[in-house]
């Protein structure tokens, strides 16, 4: 039984000298280079990064499935791992939302409530931190990496996850970040605000419905003509990219590589060729 707690209020801090990076479990195993790219970006912009080796998962899968005690036990470990009072930059909107929006409810009435609320208040989604806190824009990027003639131009389809859009409310920051990248034309699919059908355990528990939603989103992505799909949510990217792979096998769509927003920002800062990239492509 959980109690709905009052919402967390916060303002954007001045540029900190040091932040935590919350990699998230999906990035950890499936998109680790995106995490390293985020570290490179943050350091290049003058922010030192601490990556706690004690971090695991935010606890969201169990929380959304109704297993509250199991979620809390895992979340408690994150309270310990991200203990110091510095901002936490999260690689995924979904996990940022778990910490920022759900931890206060998850720990309401528990001894760690104050600690959880404090962590929630200093937790930021990646694009939110880049735009709202670091003020990343086209000018900063062009100073770091002056535009050159051999700059590749790419059409990038932006997928803003439901948790980034509605939970964290950072759709504008996603778009701002994507559109300030040099050589990138940003496109969005039809019915841009509609869920891709991932939804964590939903994709397994209601597989048929999830697959139908994923197919619609994948076809809409294909129709944008994009060279790359980008997002700050790797569950969605695995869902959309994986569905496109299958549709491509059936000749119904193109297979399109997926890249985390952090990887695109790193490319813009350090040069396309030098980018590590390629986690899931």
């Amino acid at each position, binding site marked *: 039984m959980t109690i709905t707690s009052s919402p967390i209020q916060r303002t954007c801090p001045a540029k900190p000298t040091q932040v935590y990076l919350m990699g998230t479990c999906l990035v950890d195993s499936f998109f680790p280079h995106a995490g390293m790219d985020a570290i490179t970006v943050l350091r290049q912009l003058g922010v030192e990064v601490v990556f706690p080796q004690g971090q695991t998962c935010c606890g969201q899968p169990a929380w*959304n499935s109704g297993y509250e005690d199991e979620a809390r036990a895992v979340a408690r470990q994150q309270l310990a791992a991200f203990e110091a009072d510095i901002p936490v930059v999260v690689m995924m909107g979904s996990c940022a939302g778990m910490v920022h929006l759900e931890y206060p409810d998850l720990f309401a009435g528990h001894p760690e409530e104050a600690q959880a609320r404090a962590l929630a208040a200093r937790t930021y989604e990646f694009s939110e931190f880049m735009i709202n806190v670091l003020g990343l824009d086209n000018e900063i990027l062009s100073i770091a990496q002056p535009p050159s003639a051999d700059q590749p131009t790419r059409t990038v389809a932006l997928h803003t996850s439901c948790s980034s859009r509605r939970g964290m409310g950072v759709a504008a920051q996603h778009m701002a970040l994507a559109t300030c990248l040099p050589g990138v034309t940003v496109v969005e699919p039809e019915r841009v605000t509609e*869920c891709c059908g991932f939804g964590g355990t939903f994709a397994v528990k209601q597989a048929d419905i999830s697959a139908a939603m994923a197919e619609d989103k994948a076809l809409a992505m294909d129709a944008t003509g994009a060279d790359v799909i980008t997002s700050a949510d790797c569950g969605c990217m695995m869902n959309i990219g994986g569905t496109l792979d299958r549709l491509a096998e059936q000749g119904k769509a193109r297979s399109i590589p997926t890249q985390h927003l952090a990887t695109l920002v790193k490319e813009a800062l350090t040069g396309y060729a030098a980018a590590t990239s390629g986690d*899931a492509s």
Partner: protein
Amino acid sequence: MSTPTSTPSFIELTTIVDQEDHDFADMQSRHFKARAKMSLENDTLRASFRGASDFLMGKRKSVFPDDEELEALRDRGEAARQRSLANLPDLLEQLETNLVANGIQVHWAETADEANRIIHGILDANQARTVVKGKSMVSEEIELNHYLEARGIECLESDMGEYLVQLAHEAPSHIVMPVIHKNKQQIARLMHTRATTPDGEAVPYSEDVDDLIGNARAILRQKFQRADAGISGVNMAIAETGTLLLVENEGNGRMCTTAPPLHIAVTGIEKVVQGLSDVPELLTLLPRSATGQLITTYVNMISGPRQKGELDGPEQVHLVLVDNGRSKMFNHPNLQPTLQCIRCGACMNHCPVYARVGGHAYGSTYPGPIGQVVTPQLGSAGGLAANGDMINACSLNGACGEACPVRIPLPDLIRNLRAEAVAPVATQQNGQPHVNGTGSQRSLGESLIWQGWSLVHKVPFLYRSSTRVMTRGRGLMPGKLAPWTNTRSMPKPAARSLHELARAADIPSVVTSEEQH
């Protein structure tokens, strides 16, 4: 849409309509996942719902052009509903007092069955054998038509959508637009094969909307004139004035509540609001959120039976206030916002799951997000034990919560119900009120999986070991992992985890105290 060049044969059309009738009954006899799959595989149905969702979302957007204004209006709508709920017991008493003073007879029904018995009792006492009904979701919830028909009372739905659903022997697939699952051709076939004109002839086949409406109107007009009683729902019951407010677009609601000598209104106890000052806010939100209309064609304010010297109106007006689980929702620490609902249907119009499977897949009176929240809590719908799959049919994408005009936190409520459904026995005994069927979805297998998951993720060493096994063993990963890979490629773990890459790059793992702010 092409109109058939030659008149289709009555027999052929009857066969199609009977088949659809049979398909509906067949679908409803199955469990949730089977119903959802049947809907997903039905291209006609998919097209109907996709088109309806897109249309209704667009209409709503067009009447809320200013985001800031909309959010302010939603704040006021939420506040109005919360004010009502904060004083619910008092308001209900006040409502009863003022209704009685206005000559409206008030009845209280704790269960669906009791509500049916009360309504049947009133009809019986007045020798009423024929009833015309305005649209009422509560009457669907208590399955009033079946109850009355089994007792020899003819119950005719007079809302166009409800009328068609009744002709088809189906149930509404949407709370505002009951027949949204059928296209024009299907409705033309239905009217032609199942409806008869006042002269007893088959209704001529036509796909023209005006013809379809005109034919139904001619049939209904006669029924209104002859009916012994009218039954309606209520959108708001105003406590201070003892007024029943009813919105509708077809005028059938007004006919049901004024033409027959007896009017019985039926509604849930949560529909009460304090005063007329609560009405403008909610009446601004309701039609805009439901159908994208600024106001409905009819807004009926019913304040009592025909008075001495008046020329029309029913001789008796009754209100049946139904609980059917609502008191329990009211007393639940987290689920009370369920009762804020004004039944506009915006949540289902914006739900990507509803847009794919449609209303009938839910197998409940109320489909879509609000249906997922209300149904397990109703006294008459089998609780969480019978609705476990339904509450999992949600990706928690939040579109419903964003659309709700009175800010019901629908995704939170769905998540709360999931927690109730899998709660261990110990949680059930902490003295708080629980939803019927708490713990019923807890299985040993699933709870062990989550306990194992929790153990691995709360001990960093175990977690890092497990990712090490996964990344090192990525070449050994199975090529298939159903159901994920039924429609997606297999995700491949990276060669090294981020934990390992960060360690290799000497990224610090802890903040040293002097570096802290």
